[in-house]
């Protein structure tokens, strides 16, 4: 059977397994620590499996983080839906209704996704206060929708660019206008584009922290802010932050595991060229 040991393959597979262990190590540590009783957590036995399993950490973490979890859910769902619709319409115009200066305007819009958000934070804080939107989820959703315009427009624009011009033209021959073409040709072909954008925006919004901590009051804090407060401070018993981390990671991890292919597409779309 083992006529010739293939050294090249052996090296590749051992390296892959070694790297995998390295990448999975943190999640292993998180799960075993979350399942331990606080009294059984010590630095010297940190890597050992829990002796008797304590599911209570999750309930306790949910007691503290439950409201934050729901805030993030409302925020992410509403902002993602509006973002996706806006992005689809913008992408449709940018790819199929080119106007003079189309590319320049598009580049200027794209710039908005590369700015460090510190540069807009102070005016954003001020404007939200003036609009009486500071502190709550609607204000945060507005920020995510506006600053989501560049990436969602980009993904849809690149996606629609592949729809042949001839299909648009023949629909125009049949008398379809701007909305007719969108409804009859663009929208039915849009499903994968929507999946990519929805996954991307949902993950981004769910994971966001800077606006969460600066633009919301305590009652409207998203999950990332809740987790940072739960885990912050010195005297923590680590089962709770670990259970909280799993709770905060749960929705995005599920999406990633089930729809990884689309997640990667969104990821690669972020590099504008290509």
């Amino acid at each position: 059977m083992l006529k010739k040991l293939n050294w090249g393959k052996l090296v590749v597979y051992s390296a892959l397994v070694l790297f995998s262990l390295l990448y999975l190590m943190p999640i292993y540590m998180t799960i075993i620590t979350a399942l331990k009783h606080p009294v059984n957590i010590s630095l010297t036995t940190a890597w050992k499996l829990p002796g008797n399993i304590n599911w209570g950490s999750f309930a306790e973490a949910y007691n503290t983080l439950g409201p934050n979890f729901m805030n993030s859910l409302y925020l992410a769902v509403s902002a993602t839906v509006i973002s996706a619709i806006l992005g689809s319409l913008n992408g449709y115009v940018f790819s199929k209704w080119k106007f003079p200066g189309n590319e320049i305007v598009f580049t200027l819009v794209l710039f908005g996704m590369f700015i460090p958000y510190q540069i807009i934070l102070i005016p954003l804080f001020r404007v939200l206060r003036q609009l009486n939107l500071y502190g709550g989820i609607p204000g945060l959703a507005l920020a995510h929708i506006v600053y989501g315009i560049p990436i969602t427009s980009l993904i849809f624009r690149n996606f629609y660019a592949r729809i042949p011009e001839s299909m648009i033209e023949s629909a125009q021959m049949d008398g379809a206008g701007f909305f007719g073409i969108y409804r009859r040709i663009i929208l039915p072909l849009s499903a994968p584009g929507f999946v990519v954008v929805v996954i991307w925006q949902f993950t981004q919004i769910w994971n966001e922290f800077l606006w969460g901590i600066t633009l919301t009051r305590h009652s409207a804090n998203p999950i990332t802010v809740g987790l940072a407060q739960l885990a912050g401070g010195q005297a923590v018993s680590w089962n709770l932050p670990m259970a909280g981390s799993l709770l905060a990671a749960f929705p995005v991890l599920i999406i990633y595991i089930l729809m990884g292919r689309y997640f990667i597409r969104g990821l690669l779309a972020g590099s504008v060229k290509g």
Partner: protein
Amino acid sequence: MQFKSDKIVALLILLPSLILVGIFVYGFIGQTVYVSLTDWGKGAALAKNPEMNLIGLKNYGELFSGFLNSRFRQDLVNAVFYTLFLVSGALGVGLILAILLDRGPKGESVFRTIFLYPMSLSFIVTGTIWRWLLAPRGGINRLPTMIGLPAIGFRWLNSRQSILNFNWQNLPQITAIVVGAAFLFIAFRQWRSGLKKKGLLSLIPTLILLLWALWGARFTPEILPTPEQHGFNLATIGIIITAIWQYSGYTMALYLAGLRGISEDLREAARLDGANQFQYYLNVAIPILKPMTMSAIIILAHISLKMFALIFAMTGPDNAETSHPAVLMYLTTFRANNFAKGAAIAVVLFVMVAVFIVPYLISAYRERRA
């Protein structure tokens, strides 16, 4: 044949987004720049109509040379090191992973999923987890004991050591030497590619800069009243490792897409020329991957120049050793209510990011037009 009225409808659909981006991106950037030139933040900073007087570049002057703002300068140095190490680390690890997966080993999709899942998590989640892993007498430090070696004693997140220290007063000279070296490199490349005359011309700025740095600077006044040491704080290493762990999957995906785009013919040609696997990657594949490398550098530099959540989760906002201008901006603005100085820090960050992003967007624009 598009009808005129449809074109108007199309523009009307786009218009609200353009107005929003115009105000929220460009208008707000302008306003932050304006605020950075004022003294907003004295007394009732949060009043409906806070007092604001234009004071010119005073906030910037204080940040770069003020006695009380030495933390900003260390943060700036930290940001440069974070960027340097995150970019090079994620590029290196990502490339290795991509090459390992390139030939489609069994279970490829499982491995890809494992390497990329950290990318889907929030910095707050990964930061919380790694803070536990990097606890001084547990986690990573205890791993060697599993095979009978002594535990590591390094204090990942609260070491107070720092290396590569330099005196902030010497910053102009150091900058001059670095820029001079860059010109020297350009001159060398021009000379080698046959542009002898141009190469010699490029030597002139090198000479001027080096001369000034090594000799002339003695006669220019110091920017700080007292010497001030800044360097690479070892407490940032844990944060850098976490960031590399989280982002190397991204570079892997980028490189893997690039490697898969190389035609089988080219690979075959390299093989027929007698190149082994290693030579194929070094001489054929990596040069082809240059555009991916550029994209990755831009995206990663942009991420590490605004790094906030990861540091917040791992060492808290008040830890000066591991801090970053993005963290200081938050503290200055929202804890100390010093809006003007917070805005100035934000502008410095913005300029640093823009140096990477603007050329990138311009070249992408040219490519689309071509």
